[in-house]
């Protein structure tokens, strides 16, 4: 019997013995099964939270990061294609059910767990159960995702999530279709729902030369973000490196990223960052009120953090984020 997976907007109709587009949700004897539940291919204890990137969430802390193989998108430029575009049967994983993962986080005193690298949407049940257990133990949960998910499962998952970095890859449906085999609207809906749920939301836009690096595209993206998520939502312009099936394009220059940052700030966004490329001002957090330096970063390292109780020490402006 054919089954339909209702997790993401692809709504895959899966024949017996076959998997959905994500490769990890399989029809076994007429029952939809997830083959990666409790089997992460990557468990990384060393990631700083700034690598996600999350700049407004417990700065300077390490975050236990987990991922399984598979992804529901197939971005030509994927930076983690070696795991995201791999079939589970060709991969190696550790057995780490939710209870053990939370125990591990607790034993090493992690403040948070990140569901990341590939996309936590496709290991939904594993993420959900782990996040629920972690919440009980006082450990925070972070998603790093492309946000390509249907509203109902998304709402249910968000109940146990504290923060998310969600990609808004393009502000064009055509580019989503051509480059990622997805569509724009569901991602926009996921962003709006996440923000409305009250969790901390940061947005990443990978700037790819010739595809989405034109000033008008950047302006449109910044405007949409400000109107729908609010000016306080941090936006990260990330530098592209030739990867996977997009090796013919050059890396994004610092100049382009700085131009993108300037446009987004001029459109009224309070916190705009540059990532994947070393930059002076683009990695720091400044107060939107008095423009004073609040958090100075170099790469993933915090050089100074002047925040006091989540506020600017000079003008007392409250800064959007989870600071303790």
């Amino acid at each position, binding site marked *: 019997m054919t089954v339909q997976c209702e997790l993401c907007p692809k709504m895959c109709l899966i024949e017996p013995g076959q998997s959905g587009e994500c490769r990890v949700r399989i029809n076994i004897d007429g029952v939809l099964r*997830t083959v990666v*539940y409790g089997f992460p291919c990557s468990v*990384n204890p060393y990631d700083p939270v700034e690598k996600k990137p999350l700049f407004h969430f417990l700065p300077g802390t390490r975050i236990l990061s987990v991922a399984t193989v598979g992804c529901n998108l197939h971005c030509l430029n994927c*930076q*983690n294609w070696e795991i995201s575009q791999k079939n589970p049967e060709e991969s*190696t994983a550790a057995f780490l059910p939710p209870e053990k993962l939370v125990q591990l986080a607790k034993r090493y005193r992690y403040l948070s767990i990140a569901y990341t690298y590939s996309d936590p949407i496709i290991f939904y049940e594993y993420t*959900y159960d782990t996040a629920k257990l972690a919440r009980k133990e006082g450990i925070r949960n972070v998603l790093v995702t492309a946000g390509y998910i249907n509203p109902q499962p998304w709402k*249910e998952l968000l109940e146990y999530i504290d923060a998310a970095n969600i990609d808004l890859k393009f502000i064009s449906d055509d580019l989503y279709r051509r480059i990622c085999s997805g569509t724009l609207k569901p991602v926009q809906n996921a962003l709006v729902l996440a923000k409305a749920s009250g969790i901390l939301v940061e947005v990443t836009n990978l700037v790819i030369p010739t595809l989405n690096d034109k000033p008008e595209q950047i302006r449109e993206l910044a405007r949409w973000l400000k109107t729908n998520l609010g000016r306080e939502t941090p936006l990260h312009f990330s530098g592209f490196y030739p990867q996977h099936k997009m090796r013919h394009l050059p890396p994004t220059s610092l100049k382009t990223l700085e131009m993108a940052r300037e446009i987004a700030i001029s459109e009224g966004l309070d916190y705009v960052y540059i990532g994947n490329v070393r930059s002076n001002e683009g990695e720091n957090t400044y107060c939107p009120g008095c423009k004073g330096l609040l958090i100075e970063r170099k790469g993933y390292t915090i050089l100074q953090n002047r925040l006091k109780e989540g506020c600017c020490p000079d003008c007392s402006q409250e800064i959007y984020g989870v600071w303790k």
Partner: protein
Amino acid sequence: MTRRKFIQKLIKTGSVFVTGTWFARVWATLCGWPEGRHTGLSLPRKFVRAFRVKKYPGYVRPLQDISKQSKWSG
């Protein structure tokens, strides 16, 4: 079969069909299935999760390997 019995049987079958359809629609509405949307009575349906499997289709390695810094982004 007499004509009267035939008509009785026909009515019985028809009423079972009508009642069954009505129950199915009410049930669908309560579950928030697409049919329910048009009635304005639909409730948000809980997402139907996938079941887990006991055996990973790939290779399972011991946990200690994870202590290496990963090269993955994000």
